């Protein structure tokens, strides 16, 4: 049975269910308890589960992410919330040097069943220290799994398989999505291994994830009105990438455009296009293209922030260029 809810509520219900299902699960992070979560995701959970399992942590990203790793090693199933991706850089050491490396470095003795959730992305005029999309950086690291739920169904459904996963899983929640409302869908059967075709089409493959899925689907709508039939792929899982779904689509449409709110240089979009060229060069009718954020720290004023981010209009223009050889 499908229920209508917001992305925020879907994340909260997923945590509530996990906390009820498994006594080893607990939530830890800054202001997750009394405050209710900086994006109000955990609102009400403290009352339901108490301060041991909805654990307010001091402003110590390095400390409590490291403690989450230790708790996972000690038999618990922690969900660690980091307020925003920019702050996660304070915890990059334990994530990279311990969580991601431990199993391999210890010769297979210690897996780290840790889940880390954090907000990512721009669009709320929060300026250059709260607005970046660094999930592509994390997707660079072997040993981690990187998820980017873009729908209510995934927001609800990805957490439980992430908690069942024996290895560290990072979940990136685009800050613009928290108020998105839709049917919860078939959340009980969600996988954390595959990309999904969100719109079928035959002329051009638009590849995106997370916060830009909505803009990309909107662009596909506009393009459909002009006779360009786009297929839209939601990556969902940024590491490991689902090459199979990606290549099946690109080999069908013969054109690919990547939409990524991350920066362009040395990025996830660069990786995806490289894979397309490596695996499908001779299938392509045009060079793959991409729409990324401008290579600037995200600025505060609305007009500059909007200009820095992928927009429906820039996606449509890039699609024109790719399909018609013109931006007009």
């Amino acid at each position, binding site marked *: 049975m499908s229920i209508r809810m917001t992305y925020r509520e879907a994340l909260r219900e997923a945590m509530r269910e996990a906390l009820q299902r498994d006594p080893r699960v607990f939530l830890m992070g800054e202001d997750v308890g009394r405050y209710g979560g900086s994006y109000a995701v955990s609102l009400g959970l403290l009352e339901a589960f108490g301060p041991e399992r909805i654990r307010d942590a001091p402003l*110590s990203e390095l400390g409590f992410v*490291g403690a989450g790793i*230790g*708790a996972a090693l*000690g038999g*618990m199933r922690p969900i660690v919330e980091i307020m925003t991706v920019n702050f996660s850089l304070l915890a990059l050491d334990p994530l990279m040097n311990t969580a991601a490396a431990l199993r*391999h470095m210890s010769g297979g003795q210690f897996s780290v069943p840790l889940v880390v959730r954090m907000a990512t992305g721009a669009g709320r005029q929060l300026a250059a220290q709260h607005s970046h999309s660094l999930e592509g950086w994390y997707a660079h690291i072997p040993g981690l799994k990187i998820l980017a739920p873009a729908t209510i169904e995934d927001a609800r459904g990805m957490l439980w398989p992430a908690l069942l996963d024996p290895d560290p899983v990072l979940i990136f929640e685009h800050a613009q999505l928290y108020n998105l409302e839709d049917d919860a869908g078939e959340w009980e059967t969600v996988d954390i291994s595959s990309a999904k075709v969100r719109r079928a089409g035959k002329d051009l493959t638009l590849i995106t994830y997370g916060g830009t899925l909505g803009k990309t689907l909107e662009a596909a709508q506009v393009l459909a009105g002009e006779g360009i039939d786009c297929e839209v792929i939601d990556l969902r899982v940024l590491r490991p990438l689902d090459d199979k779904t990606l290549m099946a689509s690109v080999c069908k449409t013969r054109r690919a455009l990547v939409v990524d709110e991350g920066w362009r240089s040395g990025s996830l979009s660069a990786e995806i296009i490289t894979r397309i060229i490596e695996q499908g060069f001779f299938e392509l009718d045009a060079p793959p293209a991409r729409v990324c954020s401008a290579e600037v720290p995200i600025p505060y004023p609305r007009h500059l922030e909007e200009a820095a981010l992928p927009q429906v209009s820039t996606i449509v223009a890039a699609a024109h260029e790719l399909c018609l050889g013109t931006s007009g």
Partner: protein
Amino acid sequence: MSLPPRSQDIALDLLRDMMRIRRLEERAGELYGEGKIRGFLHLYIGEEAVAVGVLHALAAHDAVVATYREHGHALIKGVPMKAIMAEMYGRLEGCSRGRGGSMHLFDATTRFFGGNAIVAGGLPLTVGLALAERMQGGSRLSACFFGEGAMAEGAFHESINLAALWQLPMLFCCENNLYAMGTALDRSQSQTDLCAKASAYKVDTRSVDGMDVIAVYEAARDAVEHIRAGHGPFFLEFRTYRFRAHSMFDPQLYRDKDEVEQWKTHGPIHTYSAQLKAEGLLDEPGFLAILAQVDAEVETAITYAESGSLEPLEDLSRDVYTPRAAP
């Protein structure tokens, strides 16, 4: 001065274990010179009383996290010497399949969680182990070894705050050997009273002569009792000294030879064996018998490592992720 009653039963074990670390590492240093062991090799020689005293005060099921100077901690925690030597050789038979080397000894069986080569990196991890134990209602404690250099890292301050705030069953073991690599304590930290730093977080502390294995053992026993009684974490500072270079690449320009020689007169093995002899618990033939036994263990470990195998190349990517049964 005679040994306290509760130390008498293990008097010779303490000596033997310090000698096991010493001889293992002396031979490791030689093997490094021969090119048999590569990478970084950090010797603990001079500091053996700390690991031996503390680990004898812990129970077998307690968790231990250590640094990159951890051969001794792994050995006394119960990791077989041959598995440690094979690890330094990079062999499949090593305690981390040869993948970690000297700095990354791990052993799930004895709950030895590394072997952490990020200074202070083991501290938040230990906080988490202690938290998990508390949340699951267990009585095991978690001990973390770190150098005084780690106390300049944010990770130390974040970790001790968390441990004290949540009253976790965690033992902080600061091995103060006076130098963070080549930087003396008073050249790198404004407050050189390390117990004062820890006390600022409302943690009980004690500063101990880390060259005296009995003093270490007695202090650790008391601290462990404090933690097991539910009184929260405890911080121990062990004043000790590294007789050898930081690693095998260190010309030691930052300290005087006289200072090293002066500390060597307080060497933990010869002062303790002299004490045992003075008390009639040991004689020279007894000492030589222990030495022969230890040397035999070391040579057996070397033979084991020499005859070890290399991990097959096709296993390079094994264990980046945990293998899972097909659904």
